[in-house]
């Protein structure tokens, strides 16, 4: 399945885009998504390691299995307020 991943702030600057697409096997987890992102976009590795993954507007843990219809985003450390 192809997952579109939204990127924000420095993450989007490092990747050169506010959205990337990534090919993942069916039943892939968030941990697998992280490995693929880090492999294909080496520049985002460091910040990715400090970032959370959100699925459908909630924080998701490493074991969460992705669905092709999920809205997926990388959430670097927030700095609102």
């Amino acid at each position, binding site marked *: 399945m192809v997952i579109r991943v*939204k990127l*924000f*702030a*420095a993450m989007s*600057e490092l990747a050169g885009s506010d959205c990337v697409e990534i090919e993942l096997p069916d039943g892939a987890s968030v941990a697998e998504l992280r490995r693929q992102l880090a492999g294909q976009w080496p520049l985002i590795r460091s*910040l990715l390691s*400090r970032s959370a993954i*959100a699925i459908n*507007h*909630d924080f998701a843990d490493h074991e969460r299995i992705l669905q092709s219809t999920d809205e997926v*985003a990388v*959430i*670097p*450390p*927030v*700095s*609102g*307020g």
Partner: protein
Amino acid sequence: MFHLTREAIDYATLTEAVRSPRCGAVVLFLGTVRDLTGEQVTVFLDYEAYAPMAEKKLAEIEAEVRRRWPVGEVALVHRLGRLAVGEVSVAVAVSCPHRREAFAACQFAIDTLKQLVPIWKRENAPDGRGEWVHQSVSADVACSPAQEQP
């Protein structure tokens, strides 16, 4: 109530909106753009949000505040876009029957907003350089303690 806005935050209207005859205490917090972060001079900030998730998290914070304290009304507003030094970036207003509850509820709301809500700021220096702020919560990544609070 909560919202994200690209307009200046009208905190007086917000404060009026949370007042109630049942509530003897109102606490308002304003976060404003500082001219200095540590040694670094800021001339303006840009705020960006993952808007649908930010709104979901704001709704969750409002619900949790209402669950924990006898709140009359609570309002959370965050500004987005470009802000000059001195402008209000965030406002939290809470009314409660008594003042200790109002202080505790307001402080919890802004603390939680700053931890959970997907909003980011970019600090823009006088020389034109800008940098997104992504300080780490862990001690092993360099971060200025001065950046820890608003």
